[in-house]
């Protein structure tokens, strides 16, 4: 699957499009995020709270749809595009 990062997340990673693979028959967004953080550990304290939850102000999208309700438990597949970004600030 492919991650897309925006704003300060992309700056911190030094990259805005990152392919990851997860060795699991039923992968979740959480598995994909772990794979991302394995390559870009500098994102970890930006993405997780002290309790290990996804920062509540971050948006998580799967193929352009917001999946913040199911969050890291959202099932994902190999050809998905996942996106992580802070609150939007257009206009």
């Amino acid at each position: 699957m492919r991650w897309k990062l925006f704003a300060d997340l992309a700056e911190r990673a030094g990259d805005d499009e990152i392919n990851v693979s997860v060795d699991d028959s039923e992968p979740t967004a959480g598995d994909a995020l772990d794979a991302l953080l394995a390559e870009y550990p500098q994102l970890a304290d930006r993405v997780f709270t002290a309790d290990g939850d996804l920062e509540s102000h971050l948006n998580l999208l799967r193929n352009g749809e917001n999946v913040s309700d199911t969050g890291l438990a959202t099932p994902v597949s190999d050809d998905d595009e996942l996106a992580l970004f802070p609150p939007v600030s257009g206009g």
Partner: protein
Amino acid sequence: MQTLCVVGDDASAVADALATRIAETYEGRVATVDYGDAVDNVAVDEGDPTDADGRFSLTSKGQWVGRGDDRSLVDLLDSLAPDYEYAVVAGTSHHRLPTVVVGDSDPEPANVVAEAPTADAVDIAALATRVDDFEPHVTLETLIDRAEASPLAERSGAIATFTGRVRIKDSPEDDRTEHLAFEKYEGVADERMAAISDDLTDREGVFEVLMHHRVGVMGPGEDIVFVVVLAGHREEAFQTVEDGINRLKDEVPIFKKETTEADEFWLHERGG
């Protein structure tokens, strides 16, 4: 209007070749802009000196030439945008516009889409195929024209528009904003804007809702975002244009980074 700048050595020759190729390949109208210290005399014969600041010559068939002393590059492109599908600018760039660099260019443009060591090395055909993929130069006037072309235009008695622009300071003692930079989630941002427009167009008496948000770097006073509503009456026009910009700001994945005299920060980090 798809706009492409060419800077560096032989910019004019490369721009001419590109404009020719684009005109041969696509149906839309093409304009070229030659930027430099001297105005090409083909514009208008010097003629008798007058006190007029602008000088135009027009035929009954709509052919015209003009010269004046009052336009920036952005002013000129804004005035071309409603009438041309393509513009190729030789000799200068602007921080937001896609730019081809031939040889060296100082300073380096912010949005370089192609580089070549010499004019001969520029792949004109390949660039012409890509020109529709570059971010277009969209103006308020372009959107108003599109709204007025609506099949329901004859029932419309009102157009309301919103323009968001780069504010230099929010209060007198604020640091001056030097520029804003916007990035968007390509594809998803446009889908969400289209969904908002569709929603709002379902309202009684609302016929067209058009929105456009520019990306890249924008300087003080520059336009950032436009919302245009074509409606039956002013009440629904005003209400819808307000709801349109509010929803765009809440829902569309676009991110703003501000550079002031003293600082640089992402807007979400300041809660604004």
